[in-house]
């Protein structure tokens, strides 16, 4: 009888707890919708503390983690909430989204291939434990990205195809097709890659991925398939002549926007609505310019300027000739007088990777390429900086050149070089990711005169040349 009374008393209490937890959770939601983030997070933390057994506890933990990761960009603060979901709420439906987010954050933090293992494990847990969850398409997609980052092209392709084959209605499906096409292209199946890009445009024409597919299609076809003779379109933007102040460096950001370093102004500019807008800090005599997610970085002969403020020296370097950020966040720097590549890890540790001294450096999807005037070779390297192929200057051209003035690449692995000297003379060459010549022309043949110091590949299958003598940009197509 006593036991019975105890049970009878417990049930209403539990029901009251659940009711209270729901009210508290909803209150947090209202606060969040009103953008009172602190109040919302506090309220959800109360749910976790006061009703840890309620269904609203894992939901609260997930909401807090999402906010910390996405809005505050505070992965470290988000992770304990996700750990708790994994430890205490794995049997709840919200665990799928928790594991997915945990995997995504682990993947973001990964600095080398091995670091991805935990992330991959989380994504696989989503597939295994929650096969009907709405988190599954994104988990498959993330598995594809992880495989792509580690160079497992076929594996990546499989995951991406599974994403859009098994979840054609999911929001990530068009993006999975784009990434599958990248894997196909990297595997050497250009036609397959093009067909898949067109498929994105056919099945999801209004998606952002369709725009991405559009420029990829145009660029791949123009450079790789048609390999049309290079022609001069004229100054770019059209009609803009003598509008810059000694432009010397170009770079393109993740969305294809152009960055221009103007030497007379010691400043990088982003081209917005065909007008230059200053970005980042001031650095005289910049030798390299790269676009990063946090803005442009400028390099002098021996230092780096990230954003505003003062440049930081890069020890041991005195003739910086090129740089790029790899997919793990490592900064790779080449020096024209130093026979190795300098790699600066995200946490600041520096190491040297043996190589010739390079006059220019550019990233490729599965590695990088450096131009060595000393050896007159283009050196194609893997993601670890190991040379995989050396291409003598002028191979595949009617005549050799002696120097590489500038290198640029795009996310598809198309490589453009401004070259000079030799019988080929001053001109431009476009290579595929394996080093095969796709398109080439001497400036003389093009009727161009100027001093061309940098090049960028645009997203319409053309090239932008930086002409410091005429204070202008020239578009080739």
């Amino acid at each position, binding site marked *: 009888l006593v036991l019975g009374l105890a049970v009878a008393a417990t049930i209403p209490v539990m029901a009251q707890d659940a009711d209270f937890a729901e009210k508290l959770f909803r209150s947090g939601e209202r606060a969040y919708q009103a953008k009172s983030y602190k109040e919302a997070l506090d309220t959800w933390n109360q749910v976790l503390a006061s009703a840890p057994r309620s269904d609203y506890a894992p939901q609260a933990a997930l909401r807090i983690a999402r906010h910390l990761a996405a809005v505050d960009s505070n992965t470290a603060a988000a992770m304990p909430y996700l750990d708790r979901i994994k430890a205490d709420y794995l049997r709840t439906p919200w665990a799928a989204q928790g594991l997915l987010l945990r995997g995504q954050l682990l993947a973001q933090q990964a600095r080398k291939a091995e670091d991805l293992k935990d992330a991959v494990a989380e994504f696989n847990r989503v597939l295994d434990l929650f096969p009907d969850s709405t988190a599954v398409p994104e988990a498959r997609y993330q598995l594809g990205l992880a495989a792509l980052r580690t160079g497992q092209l076929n594996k990546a392709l499989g995951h991406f*195809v599974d994403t859009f084959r098994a979840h054609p209605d999911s929001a990530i499906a068009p993006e999975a097709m784009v990434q599958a096409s990248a894997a196909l292209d990297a595997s050497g199946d250009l036609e397959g890659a093009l067909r898949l890009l067109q498929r994105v445009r056919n099945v999801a024409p209004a998606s952002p991925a369709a725009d991405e597919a559009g420029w990829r299609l145009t660029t791949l076809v123009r450079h790789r398939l048609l390999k049309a003779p290079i022609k001069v379109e004229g100054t770019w933007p059209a009609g803009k002549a003598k509008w810059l102040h000694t432009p010397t460096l170009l770079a393109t950001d993740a969305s294809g926007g152009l960055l221009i370093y103007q030497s007379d102004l010691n400043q990088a500019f982003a081209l917005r609505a065909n007008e230059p807008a200053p970005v980042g800090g001031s650095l005289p005599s910049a030798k390299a310019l790269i676009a990063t997610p946090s803005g442009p970085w400028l390099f002098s002969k021996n230092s780096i300027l990230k954003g505003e403020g003062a440049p930081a020296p890069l020890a041991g370097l005195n003739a910086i000739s090129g740089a790029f950020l790899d997919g793990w966040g490592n900064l790779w720097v080449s020096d024209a007088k130093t026979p190795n590549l300098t790699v600066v890890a995200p946490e600041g540790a520096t190491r040297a990777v043996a190589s010739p001294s390079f006059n220019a450096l550019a990233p490729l999807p599965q590695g990088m390429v450096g131009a060595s005037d000393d050896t007159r070779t283009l050196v194609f390297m893997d993601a670890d900086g190991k040379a995989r192929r050396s291409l003598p200057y002028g191979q595949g051209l009617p005549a050799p050149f002696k120097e590489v003035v500038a290198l640029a690449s795009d996310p598809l692995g198309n490589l453009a070089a401004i070259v000079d000297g030799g019988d080929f003379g001053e001109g431009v060459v476009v290579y595929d990711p394996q080093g095969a010549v796709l398109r080439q022309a001497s400036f003389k043949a093009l009727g161009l005169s100027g001093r061309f110091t940098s090049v960028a590949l645009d997203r319409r299958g053309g090239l932008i040349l930086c002409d410091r003598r005429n204070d202008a940009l020239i578009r080739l197509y």
Partner: protein
Amino acid sequence: MIRRLLPAAAFLPALLGAQDASVKDAFEAGKNLWASAGDREGATAKFEQVAAALQAKGPAATAPERQMLCQAYNWLAVLDDRSAATKPRVAQRFQALLDLNPDFDLDRDISSARLVAAYESQRTTRFGLARFTLDPLDGVLLIDGQPAKGAGTHWLAQGAHRVAYSRPGHGSQEQSLELGAKGAAVTFKLARLSTVLRLQITPPGAEVFLDGASQGKATAQGPDASSATFFVDGVKPGAHTLELRSPCFRTKTVSVPASLVEPVGDKDLEPFKLEPSQGTLTLATPVEADLLLDGEPKGKAPVSNLSVCAGTHDLELRFPAGGYTKRVEIQEGKALSLTAKPRPRLAYLGMETGDDFSGRIRMGEVMQAFGPRLTQVAFLAPKAGEAAQAAQDRLKAAKAAELFLSLRPVGDPASPQIEFTLSTVEGETEHFIARPFEQDPLAALVAKLNALPPTSEPGVGLTLVDVEGEPGPLLLSADPEALKAGLQVQKAITSMAGKPVASVADARKALEGATEKIAVAQGAVTATLPVRPQPLELPMVSEAYAYPALLAQLRLRLLGAKGDEAGLARLDLALGLMHFRKYDQALETLREAKLAAPRGISQGTVEYYTALCFQRLGPAYANEASAAFQRALRYPSATLLSSDGPLVAPLAKQALEELKP
């Protein structure tokens, strides 16, 4: 006496021509027995036999049969009168005869004067003779509401009668008649009131309209092809329009001038012949089905050039499994061809019984209109009072439905949601949630049930891509047929079907409108290419569809399917089963799937999915999965999803790598 009877015997066969053969034979036998052998008993027996047979027919007896029955009574009276033992029966014979037809007069060739006098005496005790004088003569005389022959005499039961007389174009008159043994005279004289149009129509049965108002149908008259004379009564002065309408015939419109209507009188129109109005219906079906038009059986389908009356008809096909209904319009002289495939029958089992919930009445109302909104399934309404489970058991046992739908409230009883459960006979089930008081609680479910994924898209063997700066979609690759026709890869297509195309989207639109061939131009070069359907895979997961309904559709699609059609149906069915994680059944289905196409969705696709199913069944089937992936590699041009989808080969290769121990 016997000789006196012979002429009458010679006359009777004509009278009996329409009679039942055995009755007629008995009648003849009776006469012969008496006339040739003088066998009174034998003859009496035969006529008794005739009388018994015809009496049994009662009111259903025809006029000749009634006449023959009267003759039989006449004979029986004559024969009974010849023997003292049977003479008392004569009065009964007369009584029966008078009950049957008091206007019947005894045949004086076989009846003696004494017998005739006795008959007349008996007649006048019950009946009186009414003499009718009619003007005009060709009207309709009704005695006590029953039609009677026209002018002249009528023996009627003594007492009160109501008599009426009418004739088109004239008024009608009615009189009371008090009839005694002495008889009475009745005179009707009708006045002319309006014009009557008289017409005959071939064939009979047409409905006659005067100025849009129906005047009735022209009935048949005997075996003649034309109708009996039809009277259009009460035609007022002035011009009129007659319309003669008959199903399966062209409507005839006749202008009646005022000059024909006046002066009033009976106006005979030329006989009208309606021209047939028919079309033909050709039905292709994957398997034999019972064909019904407007609910009437019309034989079996498939059928070619079935003559059907012009107009709108409700077409129904009853397949061994599944059904098909469609409203069709048959146009005169035109042929309508349809390919009809069986559609799943969805049985709505009604709301599960239980406590009342908020919204029950509302859901009951909206479900009333559910069936007509469904276009891809044949809807079966619930039987009143039948429980859901009982209905499902009954329909399953009778194989009368492929899909079942039930609904029940879930959640808070005060504000419940409605859970629809849709399941196949085989048990694949999905649930859908609706709210009873939303604008249209059935909208999402109806959309899913009406949605069918495309099974193919038109193709011409060209792979096109959009490239900025090109005048049209760039030709990436092409079938040999297109190359032979002059098209070149890496050049833009500039027009299709004579219209400029600026993008792949334009080209796809042009293809959608093409039928068998399409002109494809690259600048000055134009190639005419055949348009062929390119198979598309069933999407394995999509919010747009109700997968139990898709599975039911696919199972019916297999009926009668052959070659690649059957192979593709099996592939899609397997994908549908994979949606429900029924990998074992999917494997069984894929085992039977054979595709001859060398590229695109082809046998390599089938092998790839076979391997995936083995993989899903677990590590114990790794060898089988590897073997299937190996087979998939034999088809380097096989794709997933569609002909422009990803190639199977690299995926199979990767999967094989992962399966390596």
